[in-house]
């Protein structure tokens, strides 16, 4: 009989937990059972606390996968109790993990050029996908946005993987103020570059704009969504978003969805 036995429930050892600007951190964890199976776009549920103290695990998208070394990297922002505890944790300490979870990114067969559109920490899940695509010889154009320059997370990695990288920041330095998708539209107008698929994470506003562009230009688009999660494995039905197929679980049917299937609420 078929049970979903793919994700594993394990303890992982922290290798490094590095602070970045603006309350962001990058943590690397030795977790070979997950690292050898994880794909770009997937996530893990993590706790570094007893469930008596803090009930639920927290979802983190996978930011780097080193299958050979068995190491996972996660990028996170200190925002609440869970990430506060995590940010205080030290190398060699243990975390509890369930993963890999959810569906990763995929690419339509004929697509040779893609665009990546990320805002802030949304870039976390897009970096391993850019790495995977780059290895396959797929050309990448990247569009990053953030509040300010120091919060353009993963900028160096993305630049190294991309043919070109465009930026906007809310205060206009670097790049210009405004929406990074304006650059995307200019590129879509350019007949010499045929962007076949766009991948986005981190901003529903940007996603809505990409959806508009999708109506004028022919490309596939995928969005990685986040939602508060109870279990991460599909059991609790807590993390639903509204889609053209009705409510779907971000943890199980997602976190990557075809953009045109997602119904954004009016906000």
């Amino acid at each position, binding site marked *: 009989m078929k049970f*979903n036995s793919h*994700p594993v429930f394990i303890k992982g050892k922290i290798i490094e937990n590095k602070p970045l600007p603006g309350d962001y951190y990058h943590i690397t964890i030795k977790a070979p059972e997950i690292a050898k199976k994880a794909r770009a776009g997937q996530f893990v549920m993590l706790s570094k606390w007893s469930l008596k103290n803090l009930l*639920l695990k927290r979802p983190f998208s996978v930011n780097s996968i080193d299958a050979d070394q068995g190491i996972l990297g996660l990028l996170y922002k200190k925002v609440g109790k869970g990430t506060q505890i995590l940010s205080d944790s030290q190398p060699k300490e243990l975390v509890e993990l369930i993963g890999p979870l959810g569906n990763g990114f995929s690419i339509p067969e004929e697509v040779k050029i893609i665009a990546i559109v990320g805002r802030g920490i949304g870039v976390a899940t897009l970096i391993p996908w850019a790495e995977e695509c780059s290895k396959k010889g797929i050309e990448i154009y990247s569009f990053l946005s953030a509040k300010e320059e120091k919060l353009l997370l993963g900028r160096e990695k993305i630049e190294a993987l991309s043919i070109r990288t465009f930026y906007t920041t809310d205060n206009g330095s670097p790049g210009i103020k405004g929406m990074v998708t304006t650059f995307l539209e200019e590129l879509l107008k350019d007949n010499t570059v045929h962007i076949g698929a766009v991948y986005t994470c981190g901003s529903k506003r940007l996603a809505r704009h990409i959806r508009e562009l999708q109506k004028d230009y022919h490309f596939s688009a995928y969005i990685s969504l986040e939602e*508060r999660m109870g*279990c991460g494995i599909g*059991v609790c039905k807590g993390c639903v978003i509204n889609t053209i197929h009705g409510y779907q679980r971000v943890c199980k049917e997602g976190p990557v969805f075809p953009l045109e299937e997602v119904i954004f609420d009016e906000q």
Partner: protein
Amino acid sequence: MNNKVDLSINLGSLHLKNPVMPASGTFDIRDTLLNQRQLNSLGAIVTKSIASHKREGNPGPRIWETDGGMLNAVGVPAEGFEYFKEQIFPLLEEANDTIIVSMVGDSIADFSQLAKRLDDFERISALEINLSCPNLNNGLYFGINKDVLGNLIHQLKLSTRKVVIAKLSPNVTDITEMALTAEEAGADIITIANTLLGMAIDIERQVPRLGNKVGGLSGPAIRSIIVRMIWETSQKVRVPIIGVGGITCAQDALEMFLAGASAVQVGCANFSNPFVMLEVIQGIEEYLIRKGYSSIQDIIGLINRRL
């Protein structure tokens, strides 16, 4: 020292090989991480609530973590009877000897009809009636009105030969009255209890945290309330009690046995630790051995004998 203890228990005519099972809605046979052997080592499997027709559930956000617990307003999404029959039941049959089907309905007639249809399934051992769902006729939960509750259980007993478990709502003035009503109406077992209604507010955006505005509180925060309800109820009813609410480990479960529960359900702790029920079973066994008991039955309601 005796190192073989008997964890089996009879809840009336319902026999369990051990007294630990999932709380409805916190376990899904389609998504469990437990393997075949682990599934079969549970005392029973309790399904997510099934309904006669498909239910979409509530808009998000559906969950919010609180201090010591979580609020949920999932809204009992369900695939409907046909889906249950075709897709879920075959998996359940292979998973465990004891299958308890949780059910919701939006009227007494709807409940009764579903119970009749489930009566044909030989391998279903019991029906657990989710009374924390709104009655379409008046919008109120079945579980908060004695007359409606009694009438529903009575009608269900006429509709099915299965063991009927009344899962009571804790959102009442006196749960023992509800328990007595359920018992008089013919309930074979009583589950105490369900989530407690609560609310959380985002003070920055100045809106409720949940899409449904209010939701059910579960987790360690409610456990002491549930233990008190089990203790009070166990002194008034003769039918066995299943305790549920905030169990995260064997010690938590043992409190409920000592208060008078004959079995327990583990709820949202399954989310954080998908294997927690196995740890609870093992911990109960270790406790019984350490204390020199030969059977779980020896400690049920034990505090009453000490008072």
